[in-house]
């Protein structure tokens, strides 16, 4: 039995507590939160051990692992303290508010040989995983462009006073919503070289953003556009969608389905045909022992439990959703914030504000940046068309043979 403490019993913490409570190989050794009311009620009615102080809990309760679901700002010290004591860690997303801190945790976990996983649950959704598999098979060829979107109805009027409404605490649309499509882009396309045109806009919030738009540039010449808005009531709940355009086809994927168009320029993978294919998550998803809100939440925790218990199958990929990849996503988030602070980015400091007028020095820097960006694009195009010519020549030679 793996002895786990769940730290933070807000929305995700309660959900994790419930799923782990139903896991046959887990003992909930403690739950920890600073909110006395929720803890008292849970302790009274479920008999689970409640702890109000994290450090004291680590001192007093024998544990194998912790699940951290506190506001993001608290992640770094809590994760570090757990790793230093030799505990495996599952941490909610995003990992920390600074890529430097995230990197430090990656190194500490590696040094200690501990399992370190982050709660980017989309990677455990059947349709998103199928997309990764199709990319590995080269089903749509070289990806030239991606669109990554997330919309939902979180902040619909000017109010709200929890940590989620403060960027400094790790709240806001960027950390809470945009982190998900960004992490999928990390999974599908890797680390971007740079980002541009980032807009972190306020619609109703005062201390954080409600919408995030940006362009990501990758070193192979491909690009991605990010469009995220958590103040969109036309969506019943959060909806994340990625579209990948490639030289041999296109994939549009969300939680429910994977729509794939394959050109007849190369053989289709097994189970697929040229033209349109639709695979539903219902057929792509393995059953779980306990269901709450979606198979992916159970699957990610089960994967963590089995990783920490040394019970992963030999055919299973190791280190899924590791601190390592989450640190890349944290780095991208940081790039977005920095880019949005550039003059002329269009990010205001009050609702309805646009960017401040650039100074002459800023304007010069911008002109230089624009010239060098055009040069990079031209160079990229030249290299890409050269590569394409070589690839065409190769495939013609193969066809001739």
């Amino acid at each position, binding site marked *: 039995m793996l002895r786990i403490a769940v730290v933070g019993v807000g929305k995700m913490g309660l959900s994790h507590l419930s799923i782990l409570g139903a896991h046959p190989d887990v003992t909930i050794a403690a739950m920890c939160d600073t909110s006395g009311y929720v803890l008292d009620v849970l302790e009274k*009615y479920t008999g689970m051990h409640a702890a109000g102080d994290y450090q004291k809990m680590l001192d007093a309760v024998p544990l194998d692992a912790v699940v951290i679901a506190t506001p993001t700002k608290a992640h770094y010290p809590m994760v570090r303290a757990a790793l230093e004591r030799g505990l495996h860690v599952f941490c909610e997303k995003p990992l920390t508010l600074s890529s430097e801190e995230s990197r430090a945790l990656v190194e500490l976990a590696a040094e200690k040989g501990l399992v370190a996983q982050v709660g980017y649950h989309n990677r455990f959704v059947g349709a998103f995983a199928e997309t990764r598999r199709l990319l590995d098979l080269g089903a749509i060829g070289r990806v030239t462009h991606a669109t990554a979107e997330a919309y939902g109805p979180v902040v619909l009027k000017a109010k709200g006073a929890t940590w989620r409404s403060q960027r400094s605490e790790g709240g806001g649309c960027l950390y809470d919503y945009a982190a998900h499509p960004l992490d999928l882009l990390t999974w599908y396309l890797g680390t971007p070289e740079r980002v541009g045109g980032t807009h972190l806009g306020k619609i109703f919030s005062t201390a954080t953003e409600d919408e995030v738009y940006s362009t990501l540039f990758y070193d192979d010449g491909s690009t991605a556009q990010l469009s995220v808005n958590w103040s969109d009531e036309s969506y019943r709940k959060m909806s994340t969608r990625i579209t990948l355009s490639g030289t041999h086809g296109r994939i549009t994927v969300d939680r429910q389905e994977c729509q794939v168009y394959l050109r007849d320029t190369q053989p289709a993978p097994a189970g697929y045909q040229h033209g349109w294919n639709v695979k539903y998550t219902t057929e792509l998803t393995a059953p779980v022992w306990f269901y709450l809100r979606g198979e992916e939440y159970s699957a990610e925790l089960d994967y963590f439990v089995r990783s920490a218990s040394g019970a992963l199958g030999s055919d299973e990929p190791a280190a899924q959703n590791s601190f390592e990849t989450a640190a890349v996503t944290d780095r991208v988030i940081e790039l977005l914030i920095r880019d949005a602070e550039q003059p002329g980015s269009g990010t205001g400091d009050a609702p309805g504000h646009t960017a401040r007028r650039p100074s002459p020095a800023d304007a010069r820097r911008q002109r230089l940046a624009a010239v060098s960006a055009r040069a990079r694009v031209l160079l990229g195009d030249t290299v890409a068309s050269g590569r394409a010519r070589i690839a065409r020549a190769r495939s013609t030679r193969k066809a001739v043979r």
Partner: protein
Amino acid sequence: MTTPATDHVMDRLLFGDNQFFGVNHMSEEKARAQAMRFQDFESVMGVLDSAQAEGIRTFMCTTHERVAQIVDRVRARPDDYPGFVFYPCMPYAHKYANAVTEHGPLEAVRRLLPDEGLVSTALRGGRALATKDVESLVTMLVDAEMAMFQGVTTPVIFLQNVVVDLLLGLGFDEAFAIFARHVRTRYGAEPGYITMNLPRLLDALDRVEVLNPIVCSNMNKLGFRMCGGIEAYREALDEREFRAVAMSVYASGALGPEEAFEWIAQFPKIESVVFGASSATNIRGTRQVVDDVWLPRLSV
């Protein structure tokens, strides 16, 4: 121990409401197309009227604010809706989930309680939060959700699966008994529980002595979202004492109607099936298959 307060006989076919509110487990595009179509209230009533014409008079619905409009229509025209009953399913989960994201769990609960009009409820609420009396908190939330059903018949009141399964994993069994007691005493209704984890829930309900409970769960030939496995469900349907309501009998569209109901017909324990449909043709199709495949097996 809580014992049944009513002998309410459930209809064989219950009409669900997912299609009206943009819920589709297969496709977000289809969900949106349905949400657009049913933006017009008369389209919703048109489908409900078609269901009624096929003899389907139970509407198993969430507490979505638009359901209040449907309730108003039924209440205003009793002659058009003879014997029409509602099975409310609460709470409407996304309303809570979004509020919890924005405000945190405690504040969300406070904000979702009616602050005016139901003075006694609000007062009881103040005490609940102060004395940590979960029983009055649960009953208050139920009353808030039930307000829209005043004046219509609600013989069964369900607790939604997100809440049931959250409590189930936490081991908060007592909440199921609190819900049962309140629904029986205040509304003279039978408590129902929706779950994705049927075998485990039956054990929990046994522990708090909620006897012969109405439990609604996915039941289909493919074992789709039947946690604990299809064999454990078979065993429960053959051996456990409960009143089964089957949902997702088509496994989100993966099974054809005949095949789906052939499987359902093996289990006499299944009293009702809840299904959704957007057209008179589809409703009639399901009704026909039930008449041809399921009902004859029940009379044997």
